[in-house]
């Protein structure tokens, strides 16, 4: 069943190739070497599965590098990226976003937000179906795999650092945001916020970078970090002043 979907996707890709627009053309990503616990999660699946060197990674896959493990991927057989341990990287993040694309994606939160319903134009009568005999349970923290997911979140943040190191600043910033949105408690030291801001600065979105720097709470960061932060803010203020 999944293959059917892939076939469809491929068809769309081919169509897009022919017409040459709208759909990003992904480079071929190949896993060159594998050491230790390296897994792949295909598409929208939940499970991670083993992968071996030489396998091709799809654009909607994610790669997992476990403890004391490592891997290397090549992009179009040219650029090689070494994947360190405790890292999860979304293959789709291994791409450069244009400034405009990045801006749009940053604005996506706002774009897809549920709109305020205009009550004046409310043509539907009130919906008042109530399901009887139902008890709402207390909100529970006892989520089956909550611990494991935090681990994975940290691996994704590591992956984001890797993206930064490989100059994928746009996807880096977006990835950090998304992880922190789902795991807001991880970044107590504002380390990843600084990473986001740096990425935005590198991606030449100075205003956005400045906003990101300014939003970092000062009490939680070290003196050295604080100093860097101040310098960066000053620098960006000058730049955005241009």
């Amino acid at each position, binding site marked *: *069943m999944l293959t059917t979907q892939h076939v469809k996707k491929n068809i769309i890709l081919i169509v897009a190739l022919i017409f040459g627009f709208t759909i990003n053309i992904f480079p071929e990503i190949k896993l060159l070497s594998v050491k230790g616990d390296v897994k792949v999660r295909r598409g929208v699946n939940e499970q991670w599965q083993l992968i071996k060197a030489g396998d091709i990674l799809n654009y909607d896959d994610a790669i997992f590098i476990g403890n004391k493990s490592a891997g290397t991927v090549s992009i179009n057989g040219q650029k090689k990226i070494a994947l360190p341990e405790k890292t999860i990287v979304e293959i789709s993040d291994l791409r450069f976003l244009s400034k405009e694309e990045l801006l749009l994606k940053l604005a996506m939160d706002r774009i897809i937000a549920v709109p305020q319903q205009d009550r004046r134009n409310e043509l539907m009568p009130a919906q008042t179906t109530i399901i009887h005999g139902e008890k*709402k349970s207390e*909100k529970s923290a006892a989520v089956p795999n909550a611990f494991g997911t935090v681990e994975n979140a940290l691996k994704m943040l590591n992956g984001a650092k890797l993206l930064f190191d490989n100059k994928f600043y746009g996807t880096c910033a977006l990835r950090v945001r998304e992880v922190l949105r789902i795991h807001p408690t991880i970044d107590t030291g504002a380390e990843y916020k600084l990473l986001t801001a740096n990425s935005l600065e590198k991606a030449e979105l100075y205003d956005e970078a400045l906003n990101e720097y300014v939003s970092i709470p000062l009490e939680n960061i070290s003196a050295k970090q604080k100093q860097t932060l101040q310098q960066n803010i000053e620098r960006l203020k000058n730049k955005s002043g241009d």
Partner: protein
Amino acid sequence: MILFPNILFTQYLSSSRGVGVAAFTALSSDVSSVDWNPAGLTNIREWELNFSNFKSTSIAKSGFTFQSFGIGKKFFEKHAAAIRYSPGSNLEFVVPAAFSVYDTAGNIIITKFDKRISFKKNYSVGYAYNILDELSFGFSARLFDSKVSDTKYFIDTNNVIQSQVSDYSASSWAVDFGAQYKINDGWYFGLVFKNLFKINEEDFTETMRNYQLNLTKSVCFGVAYSFSDRIITSFDIDTKNKLRLGTEISAFDLFKIRGGFYTTDFPKFSLEAASIGFGINYNPVQLSLSYLRFFEQTNRLGVSNIDILNMSRYADIDYTPFTPDRLSLSVSVNLGRTKDILARIEFVEMLSEVFPASYQTYAFRPIGKARVRNVSTKPIEAKVSFFVDDFMNEPTETKPFRINPDETVEVPFLAVFNSSINRVKKFSIYDGTVYVHAEPAADYDDRYQTRVLVRGKNDWNGDVLLLRYFITPNDPDIIKFSRKVLDKAKLENENGLLLKFEHATTLFNELSKHVQYINDPKQTADFVQYPAETISLRSGDCDDLTVCYAALLGGVGISSALVDVIPPDDPTNSHIYLMFDTGIEAPDANLISENSKRFVIRKNEKGIQTVWLPVETTVLSKGFTEAWNTGASYYFHDVIINNGIGKGWVRIVDLPTSF
């Protein structure tokens, strides 16, 4: 032995307004047009009732005489007809018995008169036709009755003188033909052929032939010019050398003053009479009062000479050498449409067909627009109304639009349909009426019939915005279905955070057991089933299932949104799927999935970010998980990778909910 010039009279006194302005050939516009110029009948609006009275002021003890009563009617827009009964249009002479007759006892025998001659014009009919907006023709026929009562004397066998009255009568129809022509910039023209034909019904005997009305033929030409809204001047001239000159001034909107001169022997300007008149317009009643004064009073005081009688040639019997000064009162009542037209609808454009599913939206989104022209001379405030019989309880009305003279404004109008429009099963055409009414009038000024295309209740134009109106979460059948499903599933022990997720899953899976996905039965994308229909029919296409599932979700208080994808490289291959709000906040997203490709985080109205799941209903039969996977996959591809939302070819349409 012609001692007097040919005395001919072509003037009419049947309209007080006409008497007031003296020259009325170009202006006649009411039932009295049967006298002045039958073409003027086309100015009647719907029904007109007309009454006239007069009083001969110079004759002692003369009271008001009921002159005429007429009815005029406009029909089929361009035709007009009138009929009039005028008992007061009489001309009567009496020749007294001059010698005295005594009986044998020497007492005088009373003889009333020697001769009594009476002419009557009691019945008139007229018809007129508007050939062009500015040109009309008409003809009228007036019945003239002549009667002579002659006293004869004879000696009986006893040598006693006796008297006896003999009556002689004659009657004939006189037919006039007339035309009126209007030019926009204030010129009016009128031309009448008076007594063009004469049809004799009954003739006098030879001995009385010289008393017969001759009803001479003549041609009268009239011109009027309106200098402004307030002043109109007119003049008439006829082939009998009569010239009439008059003016009407509107003092206020309701009040008019008139004056005129009657001259004879053209081109000499010998004044015969002068008139003054007043008019009051109090819709629907027009009241006119006029006074006609003759300069030469001989013969007009109720006594005249037999030579004048024998000399007179008549075109009519109203205005004669014997007509005394008179005060005329006319009342004209317009029934039906009475007000002046201020605004006209030039064109109506219907902006959309009516989709019953979304009939309520036409209360907020214009269904059409009307181009309204101000045809008056002053700025107006116009409102447009729209009405479709059966489907609307009452007409909608727009706010007033200000329109300057001779300008047009396009006025969009709305329609508040009632639910009976849902009875329309298939594409049909209905009559809709667009009205415009301009202030300060209470009645509408113009009307425009338009066609309203009403789609079948299941018809859909492909617009996802419209699709949401098919989603009826309050439909009892939908509530019944969802309640039954959820009761059966007994979810009360489930984790509260996942309640909506569980409900959505259960409803989907039950729906998948109950309903089968098929292609659009009509092989087109323009037919959408209502959710209850889908459940009842147990089948539906992509749109039907999406709509049905959304309704089921809405029925249990789960917000959902339609994701409308129109691929730019292949717009015909558009597709719609659904996503719904699990109510789970972003930090708890892992309760649903660790793979962020499988959900969408959206900020709700309160600013809280919750987890939404995309679902593709066409894979209904494979269960919720597969539908979710497919939906998530589509979303990742369309939105995350290809940025369809940012580029505008993916649209998220939230479905309203009260939860």
